[in-house]
């Protein structure tokens, strides 16, 4: 019988710890498929961040290093400078990348580090139980914004792709979403392109994936996908923001 579907080789055969319906799992799979298809597993090194994806080293079959919260792009820089022929990626949440690690992300981009960042934006700090993140939408209810984020006291959500597009050192920056099959396919394409950018030595690549956190959003997995579409996509428009 012809095999039509199988687990990507770079994805470990273990049960993931993510909550039911959390799209972290889908994104892991897309990253793994892209790696398989590009045939870069044997020269792949990953950097795990702090957040719900802290255990990503259990899921990717490659060498991985755990970074402190927010520091993954700096750690990845170190690895890549030692092994320029390796493919080095980080997998970071929005709290990790756009709050505590903003400086590392911006400066890795400014230096044009030839690394790839998979940036999972679920508009909340998932791991710590659903507090407001810099990416939390206006009006969004979180544990620390119980009546919704208020611009007057809590400022505005950060648009990472738009910000990075202004930085000379970035080679490829795209925002995608995993809310439906079409967008999932597009996400895989973007992730593949990001790795290809690194393989071609073009410099810094980042794919921002709009993702869900059903647990902390207080919605079912299906409702979460709808919420993402209706609320996140208008504020965080999908598309390529930079391509060299």
């Amino acid at each position, binding site marked *: 019988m012809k095999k039509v579907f199988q687990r990507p080789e770079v994805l470990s055969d273990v049960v993931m710890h993510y909550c039911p319906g959390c799209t972290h799992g889908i994104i892991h799979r897309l990253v793994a498929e892209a790696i398989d298809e590009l045939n870069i597993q044997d020269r792949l090194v990953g950097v795990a961040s702090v957040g719900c994806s802290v255990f990503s080293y259990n899921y990717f079959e490659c060498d991985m290093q*755990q970074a402190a919260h*927010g520091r993954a792009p700096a750690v990845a820089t170190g690895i890549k400078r030692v092994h320029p022929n390796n493919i080095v990626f980080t997998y970071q949440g929005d709290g990790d990348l756009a709050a505590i690690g*903003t400086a590392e992300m911006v400066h890795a981009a400014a230096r044009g580090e030839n690394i790839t960042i998979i940036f999972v934006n679920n508009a909340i700090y998932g791991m710590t*139980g659903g*507090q407001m993140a810099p990416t939390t939408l206006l009006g969004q209810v979180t*544990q620390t914004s*119980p*009546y919704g984020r208020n611009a007057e006291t809590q400022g505005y959500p950060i648009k990472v792709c738009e910000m990075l597009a202004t930085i000379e050192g970035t080679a490829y920056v795209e925002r995608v979403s995993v809310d439906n099959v079409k967008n999932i396919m597009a996400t895989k394409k973007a992730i593949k392109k990001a790795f290809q950018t690194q393989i071609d030595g073009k410099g810094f690549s980042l794919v921002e994936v709009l993702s869900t956190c059903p647990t902390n959003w207080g919605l079912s997995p299906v409702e979460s996908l709808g919420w993402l579409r209706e609320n996140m996509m208008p504020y965080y428009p999908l598309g390529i923001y930079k391509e060299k």
Partner: protein
Amino acid sequence: MAIRDRLSGNEAVAVAMKQINPDVVAAFPITPSTEVPQYFSSFVSDGKVDTEFVPVESEHSAMSACIGAQAAGARTITATSANGLALMWEMLYIAASSRLPVTLAVVNRALSGPINIHNDHSDSMGARDSGWIQLYGETNQEAYDNLIQAIRIGEHPDVMLPVMCCYDGFITSHAVENIELVEDEKVKEFVGDYKPEHYLNNAANPVAMGPLDLQNHYFEHKRQQAEAMKNAKKVILEIAAEYEKLTGRKYGLFEEYKMDDAEVAVVVINSTAGTAKYVVDQLREKGVKAGLIKIRVYRPFPVEEIAAALSKCKAVAVMDKADSFNAAGGPLFTDITSALYGRVDGVKVINYIYGLGGRDVKTDDIEVVYNELLEIVKTGQVKSVYNYLGVRE
């Protein structure tokens, strides 16, 4: 009438913060302290406090914002754990040397690496010489009481230093216990208003906060800081006496448990004291003269008082829930032995590093420690000074 309630340690601290009603709280979440600012943010949203709540992007910024706010003349509080405290490091020293009495709840958690979320004291022990006063609490009640007293201690004109109130992650922070709360009005009266002598934008008395300070004055400023820490001991006791009048609860520099005639004693910090007290009771029933000292004030370190309290013991075990990697013993051990040096002769002191990364410490483990002390008393021999409890090797 005091209010009887059942709260977790973090809830209790958040309630203390609500009653204190600080001007500014700037915080960033980290397990197991996350709940403190989180509960507090709901008090802010519900209009129960007048506080400016700033959910900043990192702990470095949390402490920086607290420093700015406190310098601007505001009473500020924040909370953190482990790596959060580590990320505050640079700012901890600046808060202390700028003599800004910020209050910080440290919910003790093992410091990376390797990454771990459970309780030990490696976070606050690392910050022990940052110039902050350090108070430790065994229970939810103590965590609550310490935080309220911390405001008065830090702001006292003879002190003007920031204060860290530490309690154990999960064991104390998340377990729900009975607690007696002080009435809102009484807390308000007890803490009073923050009236710093110097603050920013006081046209009548312009200041520069934290300017360059070279060979000509840096040393004198450090000397003053050291003096403030010395003054703190007396102030801590005065405030404790005042708090006792208010609540009936007595606080000192450390707690002595069955120490009057103790021949063997354990010195310990935070929640493990509860486990160890149980063992002391059991040993006492068997006629063993066992006692315990639980440190409440670790900075300033009460050297004379500790030396006096241990002077009649034959053998003492100091238990450290953090290692100091100096190849000689844990931080508390180093402090206790130097307190005894030149003050008390002949007490045999050993050290146990225990519970790292949240390794459970049971009564059986504590018994091992007391048994070793009894063996030392019997033989007069110390087999090993620097020991590990409950580790696989």
